[in-house]
């Protein structure tokens, strides 16, 4: 799974670079607009150590932000699964807050909390959390009538059981949503760093943009892609493990 993800990333990245170089060649553009392959390579080698640290820094914040988002989204999402006033209120609030452009909200967060770790974490969690919440709410509010009916009819249904049934029946959807949210967390962290932080790969990209250095940006994108593929691949692998374990446990419990 990991190897497939990485190889897919190499194909996409390679195709992107090939497209840029073809454009450069066809339009006769200078290295200022699109750097040549040698410059991309030499810049990549020159910045790899620093950028590696920056990407790991960003990934660390993104992972913590994603974990926070998952915890919050599952807590609030399961609480809001009923079509009660609270449920519809949480959904409406999530849709509204999600619609706010983060570039407008981020500066306020940086003013209040400074340009350190906390601000990056909050913005990463914000970008990751709301889509995750809406997915969890929509998945968990869908009744599994064929199973739930029995417990409801016999009066044995409890909220814990309801959550368990719905989570179990939708485990594949939930693991997909979680692994997909990794991209959002990473993108959120990079956006935060780009806007105002003083660390991470987003900050490095900001500096490269100030210096109109596309080869540095390409190097940064390469490392972001590699590590994001690794992270997502790991999440998918963990998801598969959990699914297998649940299914096996369930089958063993069957009479």
């Amino acid at each position, binding site marked *: 799974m990991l190897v497939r993800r990485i190889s897919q990333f190499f194909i996409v990245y390679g195709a992107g670079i090939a497209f840029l170089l073809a454009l450069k060649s066809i*339009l006769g*553009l*200078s*290295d*200022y*607009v699109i*750097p040549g392959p040698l410059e991309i390579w030499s810049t990549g080698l020159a910045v790899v150590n620093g950028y590696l640290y920056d990407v790991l820094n960003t990934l660390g914040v993104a992972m913590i932000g994603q974990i926070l988002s998952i915890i919050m989204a599952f807590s609030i999402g399961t609480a809001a699964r009923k079509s009660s006033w609270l449920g519809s209120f949480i959904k409406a609030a999530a849709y509204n807050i999600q619609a706010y452009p983060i570039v407008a909200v981020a*500066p306020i967060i*940086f*003013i209040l909390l400074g*340009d350190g770790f906390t601000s990056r974490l909050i913005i990463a969690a914000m970008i990751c959390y709301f889509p995750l919440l809406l997915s969890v709410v929509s998945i968990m509010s869908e009744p599994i009538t064929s199973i739930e009916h029995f417990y409801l009819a016999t009066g044995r249904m409890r909220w814990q059981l309801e959550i368990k049934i719905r989570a179990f029946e939708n485990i594949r959807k939930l693991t997909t949503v979680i692994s997909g949210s990794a991209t959002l967390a990473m993108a959120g962290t990079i956006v935060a760093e780009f*806007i*105002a932080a*003083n660390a991470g790969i987003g*900050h490095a990209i*900001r*500096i*490269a*943009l*100030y*210096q*109109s250095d596309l080869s540095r940006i390409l190097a940064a994108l390469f490392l972001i892609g590699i590590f994001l593929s690794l992270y997502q691949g790991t999440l998918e692998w963990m998801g598969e493990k959990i699914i297998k374990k649940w299914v096996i446990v369930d089958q063993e419990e069957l009479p």
Partner: protein
Amino acid sequence: MKKNIMYLFFILFVSCTIFAVAMASPIRAEESLNYRLKWLFNASVTGDILAEDQNLFTDEGLDVTVKAGGPERDAIRELEMGYAAFGVASADQVIRARAKGAPVVVIAQLFQINPLQWICKSSKPAIDTVKDLRGRTVGITYGGNDETIMKTLLARAGIKENELTLSSVRYDYTPFYMDKIEVWPVYKNAQGIIIGEKLRKEGEDIRFLNPADHGVQFVANSVVTSEKMMKERPDTVARFKKALLKGWHMAMEPANQDLALSILQKYDKNTPGDLQEKQLISTRELVWPDRSVEIGRMDVKAWQQTEQIMLEQGVIKSEVKIEAALMIP
């Protein structure tokens, strides 16, 4: 039904793509000339917008559209891609681009004094020499030309970076207001005026640290075009330059201040008129500090020093001989 909807979406997508490509096509630049500014419409571009508003380009037989710039806009790239025929770029951008083989030339230097300076509160200890920065917290934009300028100032004054605190800054001035950062990089004629006004209302006064006063001359915004344009359409370039500099001359002439302000208000509705007036006066001091010298004059020595600074700071790897890119009549 589902298939038809899919077809409809496909046709819509293809139409939008063709429309977007056609709108962005370099061919349009051949028909009408685009002039890409470096920043948004504000007092720093008064001459440019006055030339457009008063039909000075039209008088020269040119159809010029003045386009606002922004943080992610790069006029030099747009010249090469054919999206613009003329543009405004800072000297460091030009030198960096030339170092990478970009065929860009400079036809006029708009600012004779670089507006990029450092602001500090008058209540804080004065900065009479660069050595007074020792022990202070100084803001810089990492990757920006203010980083290059400040590091040159420090290097030439023999100050090591660990003798002061360099702190990364962006567009939010709260750390400056809260005295967390004492010395902050600003464009003197733009943010410098706004911050100064805010502080004055609080009973504070301000001072500026101008690197040029300490021997560091770093050229700011200039008008650029492509070598191809210069070679193939020298007459168009000459007419554009004539109209543009006439616009700047009119905008900087104190007798035309009301006209310049009314145009400025038309293009930049978000800045109060009284602030715009102060910004315009400040811009005049930077663009036309010496009335005996024509607006747009190219200060070759300052360009050479800018290149030298960029070499010293490792921003460029080898010299580009920037004087070759300055189109001095």
